[in-house]
């Protein structure tokens, strides 16, 4: 008797024989996996090219001296110390403002606020704040902190501008880590007679801290490279002295890179590459810390 195709395909022998369709499926599957692998490799390419170029062209200038001496001779020689220090100043002060604020806001939104039109507007505002271009933030900082509050072009004004800019990142990443803590833990605590705050402090925060920290470190690496927001608000083209306090101007690595690559004549070709290498080195260092931290904390997963 003649079997139908379906019967044949479902019969026991089909497992031990190969049909034309099987061969075709296997080929297509192979093709797609190779295609997607190629696309993934393509992503790594820019990273390699950028790092490679910087190291080849600027690597020779990098030394301890380069990191810890002032630029001299119209910024065509010497090191990047004031810019490096300035970046550290700006980023730390920005964090000091944005981290507590952002975490507080995220805790409110995730743990206290109920889902109503008010919180939806807040969420919308946060998303929009994250989408504001950095040059607009720069102008806002100039108007608000430099002029309105009268901080002048200073580390304070620049840091506050950076803080405002990175606030949404902190809020979103913190809120996500808080919400990754299962709701059942909260309910168990509430049922025990714990207040919302006791629950947050004893159970939610300790288990969200890894995610919050990684978010913060990623934010550091982003802030480090920002140029536009600090250009108008606190970073200087060149300063012959180091800042003495938060109301002084400062040099910053990102702006320094812009300056030596476009604004200063007779700069040796390797210098901008070396500055860029220091900048990217800082960012990569931060990211590595973040990744290491995440791996360490994920290793001790608690549920």
């Amino acid at each position, binding site marked *: 008797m003649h079997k139908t195709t379906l019967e044949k395909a479902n019969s026991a022998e089909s497992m031990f024989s190969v049909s034309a369709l099987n061969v075709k499926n296997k080929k297509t599957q192979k093709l797609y996996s190779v295609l997607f692998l190629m696309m993934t490799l393509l992503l790594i390419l820019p990273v390699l090219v950028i790092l490679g170029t910087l190291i080849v062209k600027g690597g020779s200038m990098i030394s301890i001296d380069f990191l810890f001496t002032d630029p001299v001779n119209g910024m065509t020689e010497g090191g990047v110390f004031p810019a490096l220090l300035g970046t550290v100043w700006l980023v730390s002060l920005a964090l000091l403002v944005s981290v507590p604020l952002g975490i507080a806001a995220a805790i409110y939104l995730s743990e206290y606020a109920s889902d109503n039109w008010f919180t939806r507007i807040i969420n919308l505002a946060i998303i929009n704040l994250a989408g504001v271009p950095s040059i607009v933030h720069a102008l806002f900082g100039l108007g608000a902190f430099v002029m309105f509050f009268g901080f002048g072009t200073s580390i304070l004004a620049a840091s506050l501008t950076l803080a405002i800019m990175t606030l949404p990142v902190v809020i979103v990443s913190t809120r996500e880590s808080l919400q990754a803590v299962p709701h*059942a833990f909260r309910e168990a605590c509430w049922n*025990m007679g714990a207040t919302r705050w006791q629950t947050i402090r004893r159970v939610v925060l300790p288990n969200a801290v890894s995610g919050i920290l990684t978010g913060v470190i990623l934010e550091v690496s982003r802030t480090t490279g920002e140029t536009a927001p600090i250009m108008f608000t606190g970073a200087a083209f060149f300063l012959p002295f180091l800042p003495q306090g938060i109301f002084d101007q400062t040099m910053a690595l990102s702006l320094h890179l812009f300056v030596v690559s476009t604004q200063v004549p007779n700069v040796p070709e390797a210098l901008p590459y070396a500055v860029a290498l220091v900048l990217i080195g800082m960012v990569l260092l931060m990211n590595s810390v973040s990744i290491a931290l995440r791996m360490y904390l994920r290793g001790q997963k608690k549920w």
Partner: protein
Amino acid sequence: MVEKTVVDTEFDRVVKAQKCKIEVNDLTISYAGKAALSDVSLKIYENEIFGIIGPANAGKTSFLKSLNLMNTFDANMKVEGDIRFNNRDIHQLRNVYALRSRIGVVFPLPVGLPLTIYENVALSPRLRGIKDKTSLDQIVERCLQRAALWDEVKDRLNSLGSLLSGGQQQRLTIARALSQEPEVLMLDEFSIAVDPVTTMRIEDVLKELKHEMTIILVTNLVQQAHRLADRTAFFLDGKCIEIGDTEALFNGEVKDPLTLDYIEGRFG
């Protein structure tokens, strides 16, 4: 001599001698306008195991949640009606947290908090302000022992409670509830994620605990209610169909044939 006109049954006399622990009248619960429980009135007496049986969506869990005012954490949940705890209206409470700490809750899925075993049990005493290490040690040991978990974990009190096996976590949850020194213990289908052996151990624990507290046992295992409960209520589609002495119900003395159908597994 005045002749006694009303002859109480044995059961009625026992019940009347008992103090009323929880009383609800015309309790109606709804989620965003959709009723989950309507017009339930019942009394739960001190030191009894009060079983609640019924299929899914019967409003059993909502009932439990209303008793310790968990609706304050759920904006959608609306509770109407009169709930009395120790004869006092709980809606007039000044301190909700104190009420909740008097009621221990055990959930369907074990919730070992991501703290050490020790801290899981010590959390509630700590929340009440007990800081003294020796007192905490005592409470932890006593509660774990009463929950039949002590022997298995006494050597690793500092390992994570959330990494224990399901059955152990459920007993940890019970130990945690006991650390509240509760007057009422509410168990919501505690055995669905627990193996039969552990279930039996927990059931034995509950029989002991009954002498010290009131137990409300929501269960989807009819036989579990039969084994444990003194009185059983049958909930169906947000209504309390019937409340009665467990033995009587299982002997077929029901007012509503639906109850018997459910008990005997003829439900569809």
